[in-house]
């Protein structure tokens, strides 16, 4: 009979080895980061015994590097730790806000970007913000390491590209170019601790004249997976991110969405709100660049 087990490997090779070994012998293993989704699932809908592989003892999952050309955030870094990182707050304010929106102070103490991504909920708040920031998933596995753009990571509701023996080490983001800022907004029916009805993350780069030279838009909770919306970004490039451009970007987000109706919102409501959120997040990102003088 299958039994529960817990393992906290000290090297990436050991972690991959445990995952691979379980996959090869048909036993279930599951990676644990903060546990705020996993433990709830294990107590509720999915009680099947398995080996828990805790990746929090690895150096690579606990590292933050905000000094180089690339920014790296380990998969086991708790949101509360991110929120105390002044340099990351300056570089990626919208990404940190998306993490800060999730759960209570207590949840913030455990929950991770990596876990939010690997849980692969359509409504995950951090994923649109990671997409907007050109994030890449750094994945370790039997074949070594590989990287996957965040927008290609989720394959469906609760599913992703991770294969047997693989786990997420961390997230890599290119250092934002001068004149770049991001923002993330979601709508929830109350002010704290709820799941997004819709969400939008926007990053814009403005030149010295305030003209947008690059943009990225990610949206959530309006399709089976979070989406990148290139048409929305294209509506912003070449403009001053003015009202007309933002309306066009919002319309592109609405057009890209294929939401469902559930207790949090109807299809028509989500289609409308995702456009509004894109517009407002785009304006915040623009104003952030202008406020610091480009």
């Amino acid at each position, binding site marked *: 009979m299958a039994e529960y087990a817990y393992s906290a490997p000290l090297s990436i090779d050991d972690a991959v080895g445990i995952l691979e070994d379980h996959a090869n012998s048909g036993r279930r293993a599951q990676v644990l980061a903060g546990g705020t989704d996993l433990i709830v699932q294990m107590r509720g809908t999915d009680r099947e015994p398995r080996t*828990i592989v805790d990746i929090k003892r690895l150096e690579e999952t606990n590292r933050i590097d905000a000094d180089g050309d690339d920014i790296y955030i380990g998969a086991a870094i708790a949101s509360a730790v991110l929120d105390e990182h002044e340099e990351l707050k300056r570089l990626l304010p919208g990404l940190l806000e998306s993490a800060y929106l999730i759960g209570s102070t207590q949840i913030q103490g*455990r929950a991770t970007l990596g876990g939010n991504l690997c849980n692969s909920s359509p409504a995950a708040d951090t994923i649109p913000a990671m997409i907007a920031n050109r994030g890449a998933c750094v994945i370790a596995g039997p074949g070594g390491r590989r990287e996957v753009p965040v927008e290609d990571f989720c394959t469906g509701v609760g599913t992703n590209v991770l294969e047997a023996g693989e786990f997420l080490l961390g997230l890599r983001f290119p250092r934002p170019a001068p004149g770049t800022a991001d923002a993330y907004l979601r709508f929830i029916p109350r002010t704290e601790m709820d799941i997004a009805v819709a969400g939008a993350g926007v990053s814009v780069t403005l030149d010295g004249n305030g003209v947008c030279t690059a943009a990225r838009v990610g949206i959530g909770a309006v399709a089976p997976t979070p989406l990148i919306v290139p048409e929305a970004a294209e509506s912003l490039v070449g403009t001053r991110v003015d009202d007309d451009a933002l309306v066009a970007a919002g319309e592109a987000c609405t057009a890209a969405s294929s939401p469902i109706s559930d207790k949090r919102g109807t299809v028509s409501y989500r289609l409308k709100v995702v456009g509004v959120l894109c517009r407002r997040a785009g304006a915040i990102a623009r104003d952030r660049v202008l406020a610091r003088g480009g």
Partner: protein
Amino acid sequence: MTKMHVQTSINGETVEFLCSPQQTLLEALREIVGRQGTKEGCGTGDCGACSVLIDDRLVCSCLVFAAETQGAEVTTIEGIAGDGGLHPLQEKFLEHAALQCGICTPGFIVAAKSLLDRDPDPDEETIRYWLAGNLCRCTGYDKIIRAVQDAAGELAYQA
């Protein structure tokens, strides 16, 4: 089933225990180690009744496996009062009648202490957001907020 051997520090005291791999820290505290001040509310991280500190970080002990606390420093409600008696937060909860049934109280006090350790003079909005993950179904929140504000003043006066 194979038991795990865990050595951790609970309120400054080194504690060793055996637990099952899937047992939570909350279960270990209450059922193995015998520290029953930490309460179980929802068991899914929504109510904050089981709040403890792990390495000075506020968490729900129902959402942590006991095995994860190997080598960690855990602080529970039993570690809040000093040798000289109740902590000012505990005194002020009594004074302001900030509890009725009491199930949520240990979590509120551990969470509030974690806030005051970081921000000795929080405004009301900060307190309300910090404690948004602690639910109280009988007292209501106003008395709790006032108790935390008053305790902050008391701690500032003592300092």
